[in-house]
């Protein structure tokens, strides 16, 4: 089989792994305290002691990017994984049991697609957010709500095409229960598109966090987040572009890596019956 994932796939995976490890072990890695303001370094560009430079009040941008990765990665992974499980189940159920179940589920999911994400988010923050420190749960909750419908639709489409195949009928002829059919016959055929699409959703959530931060509604300071850093650096764009640029570049590369990994996986798992 001449199929390979390719060098750039592994490069992207390596980058994501390094980022994740750095975020997790940020406390114990020899990097600077993200809250420390270094005297006389305000708006200084990248240097040997401060790799990504310093921000408006002299904090080290590099260590803030690392700590910001905690928020971005947690929000996007937890959000995606929850949405993947819920959306995946809903999609499979909806695609497998046609008829009334499918109609109601599809209608509900389509209705949820109509809600503008930012409005939903603002509403949730207004109604639920008694304390700022709970913001991260609201973020995750909103992101899950937003990602369920797209994932469920993709999974439903994949399930529909596979539920009509004879091997599903064959499993039922053998006396398999619906659960067994879904998990043994349908899931293996749906999983590749599910996983690769989830990675793309994950990348999307990182960007959405940035957008939310622009409204000042992301995880509140002093916790650094990428979106918040880009937003704060905006006022200094003319004199110290790196304050916004560095987190933006890291966010860009991360999103690119996630999308790339998702795309490559999708191609890799392309059903091979097409060859016949």
């Amino acid at each position, binding site marked *: 089989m001449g199929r390979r994932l390719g060098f750039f796939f592994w490069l992207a995976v390596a980058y994501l792994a390094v980022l994740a490890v750095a975020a*997790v072990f940020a406390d114990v890695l020899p990097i600077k305290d993200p809250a420390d303001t270094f005297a006389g370094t305000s708006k200084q560009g990248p240097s040997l002691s401060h790799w990504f430079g310093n921000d408006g009040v002299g904090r080290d941008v590099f260590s803030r990017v690392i*700590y910001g990765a905690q928020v971005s990665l947690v929000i996007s992974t937890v959000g995606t994984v929850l949405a993947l499980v*819920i959306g995946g189940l809903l999609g499979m159920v909806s695609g497998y049991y046609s008829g009334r179940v499918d109609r109601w589920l599809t209608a509900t999911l389509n209705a949820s697609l109509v809600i503008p994400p930012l409005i939903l988010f603002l509403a949730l923050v207004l109604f639920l957010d008694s304390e700022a*420190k709970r913001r991260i749960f609201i973020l995750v909750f909103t992101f899950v709500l937003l990602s369920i419908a797209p994932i469920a639709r993709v999974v439903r489409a994949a399930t529909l095409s596979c539920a009509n195949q004879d091997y599903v*009928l064959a499993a039922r002829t*053998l006396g398999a*229960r619906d659960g067994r059919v879904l998990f043994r016959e349908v899931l293996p055929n749906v999983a590749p598109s599910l996983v690769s699409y989830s990675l793309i959703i994950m990348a999307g959530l990182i960007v959405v966090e940035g957008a939310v931060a622009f409204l000042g509604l992301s995880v509140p300071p002093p916790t650094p987040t990428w979106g918040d850093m880009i937003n704060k650096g905006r006022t200094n764009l003319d004199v110290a572009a790196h304050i916004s640029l560095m987190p933006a570049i890291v966010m860009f590369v991360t999103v690119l890596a996630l999308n790339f990994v998702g795309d490559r996986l999708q191609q890799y798992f392309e059903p091979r019956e097409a*060859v*016949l």
Partner: protein
Amino acid sequence: MAGSGNAHLRSDALLRAQDLVVEFPAAGGRKVYAVSGVSLDLMEGETLGLVGESGCGKSTTGRAILQLPSPTSGSVQVAGQELTELDPDAMREVRPRLQMIYQDPISSLNPRRRVRDIIAEPLFIALENVTRRTAMATWQERIGGLLQTLLERLAIPMRIVGLAASVAFALWILSEAVEERAAEPWLGWTEVPAAIIGFPALAIALAVAAVGLVLGLTWVLLALMLPFSLMSRQFGEVSAPVGIAGVVVTTGASGFMLWRTWSSFGGWAKWVNSGGLGLLTAVLVVWLAASIANPERAGASGVATTLSAMVVLQVFYVAGLDAGVKLIVLVVSIVVDTLLLRWVLRRYRANRNAARERAEPRVREVLEYVGINPDDAMDRRPWEFSGGQAQRLSIARALVSVPQVIICDEPVSSLDVSVQAQILNLLEDLKNLMGLTLVFIAHDLAVVKNVSDRVAVMYLGKLCEVSEPDAMFDEPAHPYTEMLLAAIPQPDPEAELGSGRIDGELPSPMDPPSGCRFRTRCPHAAQRCADEEPEMREIAPGRFVACHTPLIGETAPERVEIASAGRGAS
């Protein structure tokens, strides 16, 4: 022509389908009358050929016999057992006796599974169904039918509630933890999620964890309702000292972490406050111990649930530590989790392999029956085979559960002619070897003539004619049979083109003609055919026809040009 009636049915048949009716709803509140009162029967060891044009309801009849879907009305009996009245569970236990071979061999084999698993699947399914029934029977003895019915009815709602509750519960616990810690000089709440990423076990377990949690919570509910003895069944076969050591070590470790979590929650008050966590933890600790002692019984979801629950506990634990100690605990936890996960996975895999090994001799035997070399084929996937080989695999899968009746739904239609002969010979050999009873659905009359002991001709959801193939092919009794025979292409370059054409289109099954369904295309149609539906009757020994004016016997009308021209060498 194309009528109803049961005159052709025999007594003591192995399979008897009587007055099958299948209707599908169509757009606009209309109905598709796919099968309207078809009756068939098969003696043991007999092959029944079922022929007709595309869309006449052959396949639907075949599937109705298998109850997929169940017929709208009518009865199906196998060895005297009525299938249409069986409840789904009882039907599942009958299914191994009724098998099916499909038209498209490639799409009837799951492209993502290996041959060894595909062929062994009937065995696994049968085992699962029997185990389940036995378990259900034990329950019934213990807690009576009432609770069981209740549980069966509640199974799905309970899982939904379980899902909602576990998600809400997880979020609530997390927010509780955050609130608790916010006042203390710890490193901030990003730690909790950061630690979540930190555990490699979680990366694998988290995806399964949500599902696992649902099942876990269902388990908690069950555990509350059932006597502890049922839980202790999970401990079955803990004989090896390793198992006991595993139980001791994990219980100890979980206990320690539980205690740390508890103290970091602030003692009894908070502990009672988060009583749900306590209950969940207690059950999960028992479960983890059981999973490690005997992964096969605990199941994959159990292993995943307990592992992820352990990780969550660790997260709470780690989050309460100082930065210095945290590194050590983090590293140790990662190592321990990885080892634990590897060990459990290995045990789980070992169990799966054991199941495979138990099935292997049978799988090999069946593969050899169908002429596939097991050594080459076992670990390959279906798309690596040619159409003919894949059809052999499909036959092997049907054979593995030793069926009484196999319904072949156009098994050779998508194969090329040389392979068709191989598959037909194979079916013939297997039939002689295993005493199979076959329903052979096809539209190729030459094929049907060769394999069948009896042939039934269908038209638009009704039977036209049932008889021995030789008599039918020499002298068709039904005008439709005659047309079908006339439509066989003649391998004669001198033959007149278009001589054997069937005129007219098949009428819509949504609006079938009155009386005889074939009358719109029948050259002999009379007023009586529109008014009165013909009944199946015996016009010669062993020849049953549903027609007012059959082509043999004293009432036979004069033969019509078109039909006789193309017939002859059939």
